[in-house]
């Protein structure tokens, strides 16, 4: 029995309380939600919050992974092991399938990435499974274009985000009402910062994919950033493979997720690095996010997240 000593409540537990409340509210308000699982630390925290919200019952929604096919092997290994442990249902929506079906065309050139193709795969999967809500791990703090994002964010029948459709969110009263064909994006981690996520992982002792921690790997340098050697990117003249000790601050595709030189092998060391580092995770290691904020705003309109 845990004794409650005072009525003070740490910020991490208050953020958890809010996120659990949001998940339970969504489960009540929408018939067919799904939880988008990417293998990244934010969606991994979402799994723990879903356990807090619904256990010992099953999650009232399946998990869905928009699989670009360019994932780190370590991420795939973690995904399959973790989801088997949870005993929850995983739907895999494959970008490769979308390409094969001609729904999207593969980007070419040395800096090609499948990041932007995910939107079509995601919207097609939502359509195919008739989902009316998709829970994601996006946080307002990630960059400026998201400072005004709602917790229940409305998408029209084209999957698009339109400012005039977004509802004012008052108190903790969430309006999940939509019309047929529309859906919601729900962001339980809206009020979390990157440091909050890391500290929560620490106090809850949540296992993570190994590449978040320093390890020896073949990498190459491009545009001032380090990338993992991978089968999807051809080296340019002058680029060469080096074997270094690196880690990844965020998890995405091998083609566009930058590594950082680091010897942080423990969670505490990673947290110390994150707390001291002042470069937003997006700015530092997601190559394609170097577009302007307007690009992020446009991609939101297209339903990217």
């Amino acid at each position, binding site marked *: 029995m845990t004794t*409650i000593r005072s009525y003070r409540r740490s910020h991490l537990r208050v953020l958890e309380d*809010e996120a659990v409340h949001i998940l339970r509210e969504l489960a009540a308000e929408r018939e067919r939600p799904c939880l988008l699982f990417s293998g990244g630390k934010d969606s991994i925290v979402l799994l723990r919050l879903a356990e807090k919200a619904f256990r010992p*019952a099953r999650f009232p929604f399946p998990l869905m992974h928009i699989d670009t096919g360019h994932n780190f092997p370590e991420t795939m290994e973690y995904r399959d092991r973790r989801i088997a442990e949870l005993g929850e249902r995983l739907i895999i929506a494959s970008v490769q399938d979308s390409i094969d079906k001609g729904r999207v065309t593969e980007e070419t050139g040395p800096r090609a990435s499948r990041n932007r193709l995910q939107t079509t795969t995601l919207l097609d999967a939502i359509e195919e499974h008739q989902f009316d809500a998709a829970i994601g791990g996006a946080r307002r703090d990630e960059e400026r274009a998201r*400072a005004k994002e709602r917790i229940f964010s409305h998408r029209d029948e084209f999957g698009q985000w339109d400012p005039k459709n977004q509802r004012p969110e008052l108190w903790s009263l969430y309006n999940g009402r939509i019309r047929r064909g529309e859906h919601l994006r729900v962001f339980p981690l809206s009020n979390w910062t990157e*440091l909050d996520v890391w500290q929560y992982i620490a106090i809850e002792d949540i296992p993570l994919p190994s590449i978040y921690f320093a390890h020896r790997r073949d990498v190459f340098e491009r545009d001032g950033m380090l990338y993992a050697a991978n089968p999807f990117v051809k080296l340019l003249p002058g680029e060469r493979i080096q074997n270094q000790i690196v880690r990844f601050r965020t998890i995405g595709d091998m083609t566009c997720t930058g590594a950082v030189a680091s010897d942080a092998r423990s969670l505490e060391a990673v947290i110390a690095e994150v707390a001291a580092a002042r470069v937003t995770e997006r*700015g530092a290691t997601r190559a394609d996010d170097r577009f302007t904020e307007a690009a992020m705003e446009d991609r939101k309109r297209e339903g990217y997240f």
Partner: protein
Amino acid sequence: MTDSEGSRGTARGTTVGLAVGVEDEAELLRFSTAGSVDDGKSTLIGRLLYDTKTAFEDQVRHVEDVSRRRGDERVNLALLTDGLRAEREQGITIDVAYRYFATRRRKFIIADTPGHVQYTRNMVTGASTASLSIILVDARQGLVEQSRRHAFIASLLRIPHLVFAVNKMDLVDWSEARFLEIENEFRNFAARLDVQDISFIPVSALTGANVVERSREMPWYHGPTLLYHLETVHIASDRNLIDVRFPVQRVIRPESSEYPDYRGYAGQVAGGVLRPGDEVVVLPSGLPTTVTRIEQLGEDLDAAFSPMSVTVHLADDLDVSRGDMLCRPNNQPVVGQDLDAMICWMAERPLSAKSRYAIKHTTRWGRAVVTDLLYRLDVNTGHRDEASGELKLNDLGRIRLRTTAPLLYDPYRRNRITGSFILVDEATNGTVGAGMLLPPE
């Protein structure tokens, strides 16, 4: 002490609030900010983010580059929060922007809202979750109409702590007399408001004086800096820890081989302190029972209070469902279908008597018809216009409603969670009204 020279974009390494890491036990403070155009709100927020070093480096570098390109003599900290004026220029919809920073003692969520009367609905939205509001005042102008409106809305939304940041003190020669004059003017005005904790802090967002670091230029001021006040203001008793209110959000019944007869009532505590062994009543049925267990993911707790999300187990096998509420037998909420409420109208289509809406209150949806529009409130003067037949976008007013099913509520002044509701347009699904319940007649 602030090195005013140092604040020319190089105010690095300020001693106070260097947020190397927020301690696990640090509390969370949500506060709203309000100010009229050019009062310095964006600069102030930028200063808080910049000086507490949680303005991430690339966003800071971006601001420094832009400032240098524009030949700004100082880093234009307002750019850090892409000030609302910039948004107006880019035609981005004016909205509530949430910003995050932290010091070793606390994590902060800022609801940054524009101050113009045209955006009252955004101010009400930002204020709804705030336990403190910073109202900016330009030291040269003192109490102006907007400052009255901002204070009035903060009071209407029952924000427990109000801070008047008297900004641009550098433009009034850091004058104590001027500051005291403004403070007096406001204290007379604020006497009519219903706010317990009001403080006045003389600052200069531009130089950073008394924002994060104490100011050498105002030795006559012995109060806390703005950041120190934000870090230490007592917020633990802002919640209602007296009246037990537990709206049931979800009934957890796995009916699995492993948990054949597990039945838990999950939700977020809205008031009071609930403990195993407590006698409770389930509303609206009124059936009595006892709390046997309170848990979170299998971990048993000996108490639960707001804002904890927990699962409660009851001794009796009652028919309890989402929308019901647990409370103590001798301390029950009002159960009623005829409501009296203050409301902020948030839709283009005006509210008028006889209009029907969906209503959401705690974990309950229902339908409501407006039976009476008592008056529209002039938010600048507090005057009641009983003649107006409708409430337009951004209007505040008092209405009477009748709901299809009874609500289990408290007056808003007693509990901001069980005392608030939203109205939703059943055709557009848009949230059109934010309501604050008054005690029944």
